[in-house]
């Protein structure tokens, strides 16, 4: 019964499986993101208040939603690292932190561009989503810098796993405390994000497609970076040497 689980943790098994699956995933990613982009840019009707800028939200909402998945992902991978000492889980988690930081950054950037037109400001402290996303960005950078500071791979894996689990809990606490800080301290933000997006099935379908596309993109990038990590860490393993010899 536990065989599949043990198999799942084997880098070699993952590498071979991902070699088969990767082309399909890449094709799916390109198709879905391509469709969503064309739809959003050409067919989405301009919002009666925001005009064409509402189209930025298709990307923004998708990336923002996806960026929230990183801490749970890293916490689960970290638990697997700590409990079952599975090497593969840490190889995934290592690159997830940096990727998550990029996703958070893109969320902040696209949000700022949209906000500069719709709210008339690039940054607004009174919106709790902005502030909690900023601190998620900082927390992810903390995990990245802890990883790069620790030289021993095994130690770094365990330390980052622990930090990811604590960080996952903390992201939630920070999110709620920032929200209370806003609602108790200041009136609600001047413009609600819902005003632009509540209407029209066209918008939601485009956004849903984009969310699917961004998740596909996330899995492709994670798989690629994990394969890289596998080759680097298993470079002395027989199967890697044989594979390289076969290619030459």
């Amino acid at each position, binding site marked *: 019964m536990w065989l599949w689980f043990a198999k799942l943790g084997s880098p070699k098994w993952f590498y071979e499986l991902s070699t088969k699956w990767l082309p399909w995933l890449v094709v799916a990613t390109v198709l879905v993101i391509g469709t969503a982009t064309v739809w959003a840019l050409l067919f989405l009707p301009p919002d009666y208040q925001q005009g064409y800028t509402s189209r930025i939200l298709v990307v923004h909402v998708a990336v923002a939603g996806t960026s929230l998945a990183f801490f749970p992902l890293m916490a689960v991978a970290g638990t697997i690292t700590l409990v079952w000492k599975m090497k593969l889980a840490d190889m995934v988690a290592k690159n997830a932190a940096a990727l998550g930081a990029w996703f958070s950054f893109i969320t902040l950037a696209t949000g700022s561009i949209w906000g500069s037109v719709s709210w008339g400001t690039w940054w607004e402290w009174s919106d709790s989503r902005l502030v909690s996303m900023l601190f998620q960005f*900082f*927390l992810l950078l903390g995990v990245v810098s802890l990883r790069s*500071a*620790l030289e021993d791979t095994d130690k770094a894996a365990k330390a980052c796993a622990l*930090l990811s689990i*604590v960080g996952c809990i903390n992201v939630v606490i920070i999110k709620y*405390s*920032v929200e*209370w800080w806003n609602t108790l301290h200041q009136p609600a933000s001047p413009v609600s994000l819902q005003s632009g997006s509540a209407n029209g099935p066209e918008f939601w379908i485009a956004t849903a497609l984009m969310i699917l596309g961004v998740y596909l993109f996330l899995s492709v990038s994670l798989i690629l970076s994990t394969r890289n990590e596998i080759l680097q860490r298993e470079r002395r393993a027989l199967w890697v040497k044989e594979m390289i010899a076969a290619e030459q």
Partner: protein
Amino acid sequence: MLSVAVKPSTRSAFMLTLKRDLLIAFKRKNDIVNPFMFFVIVISLFPLAISPEGERLAEIAAGVIWIAVLLSAMLSMDSLYRGDFEDGSLEILLLSPHPLFFLVLAKNIAHWLVSGLPVVIASPLLAYMLKLPSESYATLMLTLLVGTPTLSLIGSIAVALTVGLGSRGLILAVITLPFSVPVLIFGTLAVQASASGLPSGGYLTLLLALLAGSLSLAPLTSAAALRISVS
């Protein structure tokens, strides 16, 4: 210090660790005095940089004191496990038959007594210098009394994770400061509420909840982190 003939109970191990850490702290006064001086000096820089006017100072007083507390806690945390790691007594601690939870908790309490408590005691004086309305002195002290141990407990996790590193002054801050956001938010909100005559009990309750949560979970996490770092 630790040479007890019969196997001591966990309670006496807890007390012995506490005593030992306090003794070491008083023999190495620099580790206590410097973060405290940093706290006082940072606060006295703000009026010079912003404005000597009482009204403007009173507006920012709560935030300035809390940020100075956060920064000086960051500096003092650095010495929490370093000495023990360097002379090898940390390994003895990890090998002891007692639950590491209580030993780590004892170390954290000792550390808070010498680094957090002085800040709490000195805070009304600094609040006076920043022209904070006198009605909120009590709230400020209470929030600091509840908030600083939380900061120590959270910081202890990051210190434990990085204890083996040679130079780690900044990485400690990068990891810990985002974690301290909730304490900062509720601490300053409570003081600002009481300064404008509003009830601050709700924020204090939230701070207490954070303390209760970190008191039960943080030593556990620190213990796990120490076992990872010293292996």
